[in-house]
Structure formats: structure tokens, C-alpha cells
């Protein structure tokens, strides 16, 4: 039986982890590779790096991080942030990423999703959606960390990018991100039920019950979280045991 995935996400800036992981004794909590190795050993099902490097000159640092991670971790790795061209995707895949997540470039040019999926296969193209609620039944896509509205309906957009070849959706509720009040379940379910591709729920996890809700009520196939794992509040193992108790299939290898 296919298991639900628990995915820790690390923000990486100029090759260093922002808000370092501190649930184990690491020699260098700012080294993304050390954190990746710790999560690999802890039983994470996948790992996600979000590159928030601002300057163009330092964009290459993520490639080195990915390369070193792939040498040490034999688990799936998704990398996102600043992916704008098929060359960006190719470079990340060659460095050892398994999936690449696209956000703004897909909003600006939907055809980029088609081009990327045709070139590299749907299985490695994740489209990241940052959505905010604008009325009771409507969520819109926002870019630039939730600051820039686009007026695009998030559910329609998700359907569109999956039809163009996106193999997975990474959905973040910008209303919930950082609040620790749980996923936006209505939004998650609206998109998960509208598309055939798997959906990773993100934004708002504060308790282990939130992880269960994302899958059971939001119909996501994977849940992504950052701070609850990084600061040692909960281990991956504790998260999975909690999900298992709630009747969800998880991997305990």
C-alpha cells in the first residue's frame, strides 16, 4: 500500500540553512547537507530545499548543496526557489535533485510547465502554489512571498498546470503559513479533489493533529512542515506514529 509522505522543508540562503535545525547535535547546524543527513536518518520520506538566495551571483550555491546532499542521502529530494528556465531545471536534476518545484515562472508563463514536463517528464515537475483566501469560496495565487496578488483563481490554476503536465502540486496557504493554526483544509481539499496529480499540503502546521487533518480531511497525499521538526518540537518518528494511530498508512522502515 502506498504510504502518506512526511516532508521536512529547509529554507536555504546562499548555501546555508536559515533557522538551523537543532533536533540533533550537528557540528554545523547551518549546513544543509548535515541537516539532510539527519532527516534521512530520522525517517523523512522526502526532503525539500527552498532556495531563497536573493542575489543572482550566489544562485550557484544551491547546486553545490544539492550535489553534496545527493552524495550522502539516498532519499528523494525536491528543490525549489528561483527556477525560471529549463536550464535551471536541468542543472538541478543533474546535480541530483529528483523533482524541481516551479512557482513564479509558471504563473508568468504557463507554457513553461508544458515545456518542462515534455523535456524532463511530469514526474519531476512540481508546481508550487501560494494561495490566499479572497472571499468565502475563492482563493487567489500570490507571488513574492504572498505580497503580490495575481487575481488568478487557485483551483482553476491547479487544474490548468496539471493538464499541462505538472506531476505534483505543492500547495501553501499564505493565510496559514507561520501561524501554527493548521492547514487551510477547505482550500487543500478543493484543489486535491480537483486534480489527478498528488498534492503536498503546506503552511500552518503547529501540531501533529494538523498533519493528520491535511491527509484525512484535506485529501493531500503528503504533508510538508518546517519549524515543528527543525526545532525538535516533534520528531519525524513521533509524527508518523501519531498518523498511524489515526489510521493513516505511513512508512516506518
Amino acid at each position, binding site marked *: 500500500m502506498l*504510504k502518506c509522505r512526511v516532508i521536512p522543508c529547509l529554507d536555504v540562503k546562499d548555501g546555508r540553512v536559515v533557522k538551523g535545525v537543532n533536533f540533533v547535535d550537528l557540528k554545523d547546524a547551518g549546513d544543509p547537507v548535515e541537516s539532510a543527513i539527519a532527516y534521512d536518518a530520522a525517517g523523512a*520520506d522526502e526532503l525539500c530545499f527552498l532556495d531563497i538566495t536573493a542575489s543572482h551571483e550566489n544562485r550557484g550555491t544551491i547546486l553545490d548543496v544539492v550535489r553534496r546532499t545527493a552524495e550522502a542521502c539516498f532519499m528523494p529530494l525536491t528543490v525549489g526557489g528561483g527556477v525560471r528556465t529549463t536550464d535551471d531545471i536541468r542543472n538541478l536534476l543533474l546535480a541530483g535533485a*529528483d*523533482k524541481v518545484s516551479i512557482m513564479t515562472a509558471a504563473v508568468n508563463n504557463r507554457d513553461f510547465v508544458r515545456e518542462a514536463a515534455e523535456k524532463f*517528464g511530469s514526474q519531476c515537475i512540481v508546481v508550487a502554489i501560494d494561495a490566499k483566501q479572497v472571499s468565502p469560496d475563492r482563493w487567489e495565487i500570490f507571488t513574492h512571498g504572498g505580497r503580490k496578488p495575481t487575481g488568478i483563481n487557485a483551483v482553476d490554476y491547479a487544474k490548468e498546470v496539471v493538464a499541462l503536465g505538472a506531476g505534483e502540486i505543492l500547495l501553501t496557504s499564505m493565510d496559514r503559513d507561520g501561524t501554527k493554526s493548521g492547514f487551510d483544509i477547505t482550500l487543500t481539499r478543493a484543489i486535491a479533489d480537483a486534480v489527478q*496529480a498528488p498534492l503536498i499540503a503546506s503552511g500552518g502546521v503547529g501540531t501533529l493533529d494538523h498533519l493528520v487533518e491535511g491527509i484525512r480531511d484535506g485529501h493531500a497525499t503528503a504533508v510538508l512542515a518546517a519549524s515543528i521538526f527543525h526545532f525538535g518540537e516533534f520528531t519525524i518518528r513521533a509524527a508518523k506514529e501519531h498518523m498511524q494511530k489515526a489510521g493513516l498508512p505511513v512508512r516506518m*522502515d
Partner: protein
Amino acid sequence: MSVAIVDYGSGNLHSAHKAIERAAAEQGVQVIVTSDPDVVRQVDRIVLPGVGAFADCRRGLDHVAGMVEALEDSVIRSGKPFLGICVGMQLLATRGLEHGVAEGLNWIPGQVIEIKPDAPNLKVPHMGWNTLKPSRPHPLLKDIPTGENGLHAYFVHSYHLQAANPDQIIASTEYGGELTAMVGRDNIVGTQFHPEKSQKLGLALIANFLRWTP
């Protein structure tokens, strides 16, 4: 002893290379990433990786002059142990039906068809960790716990190989019906999942492959 990873422009060689290197180091096996057909003829074992679409991978393979012939010499005629991974496994079939029809190597007769789970809530691609259901023992699965309570393998695919001869299916996986997870005959094996991404199960399977004397 040496093992070649065939490089034909199909994406993620780095992870496959590193995972095989780790298992190979313990056994003193030399790992060579190559797009040279002569090297494929000289090595003792061959790994054919592959990600992306079937037809694209087939084109990539054809694009390396003499590679298909070298693979047939080494694997079919000389009987060297062969491991195909993901689309590298699907290419063993007679044909693939992804975005049109493309010919495979026809080493494991069958077709590569779209996954259609029988439950509407099951997503495509089949993406994530699933268990293996072996239909018979195989040296590559030696000492690896399988079944519902066994170790997990990492899958990510929208098509799977429907083998014409059921005896050539070594293991399947459950996803709204059975999907082919592993095929093989004689000195040939292919895995739909990614051993290089499957942590314990994957590294154990790669180590078994490097030891295998079919």
C-alpha cells in the same frame, strides 16, 4: 570487477552513481559512468537508468551510436548481469505507449501502459513509498523484507510494464490493482522503483545486484 552506468542523456545519473558507488566500494567494484559502447562491452555488469518519457529515453539511447548493439552484445549474447531502473526498466518491453508508440528493446516482451487505478481517489503519478509483493524468490531480493510489513521502495511513475509472460514479473506493488514493480529473466532485471532513492531496501538491492552470478 567493474559495473557501467550507461549515460545516454537521461537525467539523474548523479544519485544512481553515488548509490552504486557506495555499495560497490564495499565489494571492491569499479563504477564507470559511460556513453562509450566499447566500455559497455568490456565491463562485467551494466546498469541502465532512465527518467522522463519512454519515447524520449528511447531516442536518447538511439542517439548514442552503437549503444543498443553494445547492450545486446553484452547482455543478450554474453549474459552479463543487467539492471534497468525506472524508464531503464520500461525500455526492456516490446513497446511503450506514452505520448505515441515507441519501440523498446523487447528483452521482456510486453507493453508499457498508463496506470489506471481502480479507485477514483488514487492519484497518478503513483508517487511515494510502497511495499513489494514478490511472485517468486530472486537473488536481488535476498535478505530484503518484503510484503505489507516489509521495507518500502520509492516509486514515481505514470506508466508501468505489463509483461506478456507473467513468469517474468518478479514483484508487483498494490495501487488500486497490481502494478509491475520488478521484472526479469536469466541475467536481466528491471525495477520500476528507484533503488538509488529507496534507502535501506535500495542499497541492499544494489549490493545484491553487484554480487549476483546468474
